[in-house]
């Protein structure tokens, strides 16, 4: 027993080769388990958790700062050393980070007042350490090309701190979580532009298609991020106001404007291009729904927000974990059919979740549960296919984060 235990923590276990491995594994597990628990609570099988702020705060916080945060940490700790040409972080330090994350989840799950302090401590220290380990290298880069990640993480730290302050003071903590959704949407745009610019052009080049190359144009990106920030701040300061409704429409239009970069012809119809495209579609529709609902008096903010988090955030995390996970573990891009299947399930879950808010819809009663179940299934599929990649040895026997350059895209 103690032998197995020490083996898991031994730094030479494949799980610790690279930061993304444990974090992606835990992210997917959290995505599945936290949703299963929520499903249990919805259907009355499980008792509501006795956490500060109530069950909905628990659900939202665990999806945003548990699930998404783990995926984000895994991505940044792998991508930033690659961007800056530095070695990945020491494995001991990585184990500390993962332990902090786990402790934060446990503490939040049984968050009475005391445990809430503990959860705050774990989560905020984790986020600060994450910023600490990427800010230096990104700042020292010659043109600070990727510094947007640091700003976004600082914004995330701010909202997360605000969340815990409100929670511990007994105030409504949901506005802070809404703000965090905005920060995460901006982060998706920042991260996707980096990933897809390379990925898509690699694929286009490998196919030898002579189309216009895909270019993520900075001004459009900046406009989209600005509009998202404007909406998030507007909604935070004037909740429920029509001003935020117009700002949401502005955000939706700015994101649709971003899709200009993506209209590259027939090449759009393949998974590595289509899934990122769908992320933006979900995001634009989400903000559009929030805006239209607000201005027409038929409030649809919750449906819109779930388009953002289930659709945009879920798909973004799925595609980033699928790409970064298999490339940096030496397997090359994964062309098996599970990824489109999981992405399709996430889209279906998104649609069902949004429709569940529709008062007249037949599925309203079972929509929430069905959506949660499908989401759960999607992450199980990911886990089933990625466990070997994340926790197993590399095919080339190395112990690093190196990419493979397979020409068979």
């Amino acid at each position: 027993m103690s032998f197995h235990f020490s083996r898991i923590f031994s730094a030479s276990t494949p799980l610790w080769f690279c930061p993304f491995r444990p974090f992606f594994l835990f992210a997917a597990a959290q995505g599945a388990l936290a949703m299963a628990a929520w499903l249990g609570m919805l259907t009355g099988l499980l008792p509501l958790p006795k956490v500060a702020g109530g069950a909905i705060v628990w659900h939202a916080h665990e999806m945003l700062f548990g699930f998404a945060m783990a995926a984000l940490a895994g991505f940044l700790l792998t991508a930033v050393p690659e961007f800056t040409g530095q070695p990945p972080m020491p494995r001991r330090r990585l184990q500390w980070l993962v332990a902090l994350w786990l402790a934060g989840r446990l503490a939040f799950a049984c968050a009475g007042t005391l445990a809430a302090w503990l959860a705050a401590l774990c989560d905020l220290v984790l986020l600060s350490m994450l910023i600490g380990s990427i800010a230096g290298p990104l700042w020292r880069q010659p043109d600070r090309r990727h510094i947007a990640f640091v700003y976004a993480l600082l914004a995330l730290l701010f909202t997360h701190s605000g969340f815990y302050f409100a929670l511990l003071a007994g105030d409504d903590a949901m506005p802070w979580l809404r703000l965090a959704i905005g920060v995460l949407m901006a982060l998706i745009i920042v991260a996707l532009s980096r990933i897809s610019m390379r990925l898509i052009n690699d694929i286009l080049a490998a196919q030898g298609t002579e189309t216009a190359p895909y270019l993520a144009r900075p001004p459009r990106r900046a406009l989209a991020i600005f509009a998202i920030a404007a909406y998030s701040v507007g909604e935070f300061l004037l909740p429920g106001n029509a001003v935020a409704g117009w700002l949401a429409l502005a955000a939706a239009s700015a994101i649709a404007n971003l899709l200009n970069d993506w209209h590259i012809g027939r090449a759009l119809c393949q998974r590595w291009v289509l899934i990122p495209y769908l992320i933006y579609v979900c995001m634009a529709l989400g903000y559009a729904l929030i805006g239209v609902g607000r201005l027409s008096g038929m409030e649809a903010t919750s449906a819109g927000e779930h388009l953002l988090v289930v659709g945009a955030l879920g798909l973004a995390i799925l595609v980033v974990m699928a790409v970064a996970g298999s490339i940096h573990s030496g397997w090359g891009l994964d062309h098996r059919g599970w990824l489109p299947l999981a992405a399709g399930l996430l889209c279906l879950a998104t649609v069902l979740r949004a429709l569940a808010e529709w008062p007249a819809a037949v599925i309203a009663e079972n929509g929430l549960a069905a959506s949660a179940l499908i989401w759960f299934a999607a992450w199980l599929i990911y886990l089933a296919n990625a466990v070997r990649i994340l926790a197993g040895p590399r095919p080339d026997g190395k112990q690093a984060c190196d990419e493979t350059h397979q020409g068979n895209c």
Partner: protein
Amino acid sequence: MAWLTATGRYLWCGWGSLASLFLFLALWEYAAQHFGPLILPTPGEAFGTLAELFSSGAAWPEILVTARRALLGYGLALSLGSLLGLLVGLSVTASVLARPIVTLLVGTPPVAWLILALLWFGAGDGTPVFTVFIACFPIVFVGAMQGTRTLDGQLQAVAQMFGLPWWMKLADVYFPHVVSYLFPGWITALGTAWKVVVMAELLATSDGVGAALAVTRSHLDTAASMAWIVALVGSLLAIEYLLLEPIKRKIESWRTFA
């Protein structure tokens, strides 16, 4: 097909402008909430009133009257201005002679013309039509004059060397060049026409959008005033971005696109 894709692409680019318009509406909304409906109605109220005006049928006759006057003045300015401008541009002497006069015409504020027109034509169609004409004419004229003034001697030598027949010289050498000067003038003039006609109607007539605006003002009906203003600006934006800009892009694709 290629044209269809290009048009789709162009329309999709509209999202960017839409985003900035929505940001503007958010500011408007905030200001309206701050100042209250008597000073500034919210965008929702303005759009609602506008929809009412249309659904009750009150808006269409006024808009038609205004459009008729604006287009008449604009059409006159367009045809006369283009023709005279092109002819004058052919002669250096005439250009030198015309320039100060055009500066004079451009510099005179439309309100001054309106006063004169009221004296000459009285209250009726003549006043707004004339004001629109005289406000648009110099803009079109200058564009046309520059068009022929700047005809490229080097390209004419090419045309002569390769023995281009007169119709080819016209269609392939002169026309594209002249149009690239004419078109911006036409577009600017259209905007001017739309603005000036309402101003003229406000002071000179009893029907049309301008007159309707005057009525809403006298009733202190801010929402209806705002609705009319939205209709004016909206129609101008629609004409410019949905009609003129695509035509311009089509004709001048060599300028913008690689």
